[in-house]
């Protein structure tokens, strides 16, 4: 356990990206949220750790640590109360003005643009954590064949919904922000919509599956999203422990 501040405690499970380490972080988060301990302000799971923000005038670090140790021992004992993972299907219109770097990715990898799209949509990616901007999913498991270097100079403004690849990471930008990923497409779906009862499309531990759609479908779904009638396609058909 590490000190992040007088009101922050970090439980670190490892220093690398792996589905096993991430699963421990998510399980601890879920248990901490379930137990509703007085003095805990919020729990933030990441790739490899959990940050607990607490009020030190309400609960001491040593009491909190003891509590966390206890929960950690429970995790080992009962092992996996395995919820089937949710797969959120995210429609993407690839290439053209919505994905200006698709040609670059094809050239760089020696693939055709169709092959890049096929590989990008070939499997669901684990949502390791959310961060950076509201609703932004950190995904793992991009096939090496389509990994490309980030842009050296970040773009100042990347439009909301842009889907990109940077190094061996992929994902999409839920709000307009600066960024250095190569943009290969755009989704009409909002990962963050403050008008919804649950404003966030993903939770850590979900899977995200990109689906190839054409420009007509893109605009049709975008209209539905704007009118509030779009229902994201979510399934829970079992993928076990993939990363």
């Amino acid at each position: 356990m590490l000190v992040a501040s007088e009101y922050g405690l970090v439980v670190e499970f490892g220093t690398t990206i792996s589905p096993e380490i991430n699963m421990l972080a998510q399980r601890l988060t879920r248990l901490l949220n379930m137990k509703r301990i007085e003095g805990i302000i919020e729990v933030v799971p990441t790739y490899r750790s959990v940050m607990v923000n607490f009020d030190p005038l309400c609960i001491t670090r040593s009491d909190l640590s003891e509590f966390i140790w206890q929960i950690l021992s429970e995790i080992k004992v009962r092992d996996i109360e395995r919820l089937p993972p949710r797969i959120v299907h995210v429609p993407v219109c690839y290439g053209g003005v919505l994905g200006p770097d698709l040609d670059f990715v094809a050239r760089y990898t020696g693939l055709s643009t169709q092959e890049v799209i096929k590989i990008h949509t070939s499997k669901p990616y684990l949502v390791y954590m959310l961060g950076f901007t509201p609703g932004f999913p950190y995904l793992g498991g991009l096939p090496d064949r389509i990994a490309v270097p980030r842009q050296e100079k970040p773009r100042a403004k990347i439009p909301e919904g842009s889907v990109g690849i940077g190094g061996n990471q992929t994902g999409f930008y839920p709000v307009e922000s600066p960024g250095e990923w190569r943009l290969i497409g755009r989704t009409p779906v909002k990962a963050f919509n403050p008008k919804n009862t649950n404003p966030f499309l993903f939770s850590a531990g979900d899977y995200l599956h990109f689906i190839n759609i054409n420009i007509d479908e893109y605009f049709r779904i975008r209209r539905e999203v704007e009118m509030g009638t779009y229902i994201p396609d979510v399934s829970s058909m079992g993928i076990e422990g993939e990363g």
Partner: protein
Amino acid sequence: MITVIHQGHFTTIQDEGRWGYQAYGMPSAGAMDRYSCRVANLLVGNKINAAVIEMTMFGASFKFDEEQLVAVCGADMQGRLNDAPISNWSSFLVPKRGEIKFASATTGYRTYLAVRGGVDVPVVLESRSTYTRARVGGYEGRALQQGDVLYVGQDGAFQVHTQNLESQYIPQYGEQINLRVLLGPQDNMFTPEAISTFFESVYTITDQSDRIGYRLKGPRIMHTGKADIVSDAVCLGAIQIPANGMPVIMTADHPTTDGFAKLGSVIRADLSILAQARPGGTIRFRCIGEQEAIEALKHEKQCYISITKLCQDG
């Protein structure tokens, strides 16, 4: 109703912040200077989490439709009520059709205007704080503009009288500040020499400093190995050291996760001092233990209790 006559430089609605959503990538936002924000609320008898107006360096001006009890705390922006000077760190009545006008800050950087009942903008994810990057909260998720109309809430918590705050509760803002720091969580990624350099040097606040973070300039802090880590959570006040060795202090709108090593964090009680520091100002850091950080929080809490009592007694 309060109408924005002039918008100032970067004027937003803030409260205590949006806590509980960092797991979804949502920064806490909230008032940069929590102390001034809370005291302004207490002076008008609000709950401490009522929404206030935060102004940065150059103040805004407002016209009031109705008589209102207001308070002004933080940087001195030479406020005037119907052209007569008002005193900072005080509460006073603005008459019907009164106009409050602020100029530029003479000392400090951010000024808080509280109105009895709080500024009534919609609550988004349990807070009224503006987070402009995602266009969330406050007034349409953005900084105020000329012509915007603000409504005033009804939720005054207790009766108060107009008054000036006792001087012992009024902080002094200077060009040089001292901030207390708790080491962690990645202080082991720096050499002992790098850590001593950090605590023995003077850092200058660059003009690349805003509600997201304060970027500093000074002697480089060297990492023992790489500068980056597999992204983890960032807490308010964290001191990140990117590859260029120049510290960045994470403030209200900071990203919730990031991939740079963090040497330590500025203690919560001192973030209000930082919030009032301007680009060009200098910082010295002092390494402290956890107990001192908690004592500072207790002291701050005691101040709020005493101020509440003073306000209620009149």
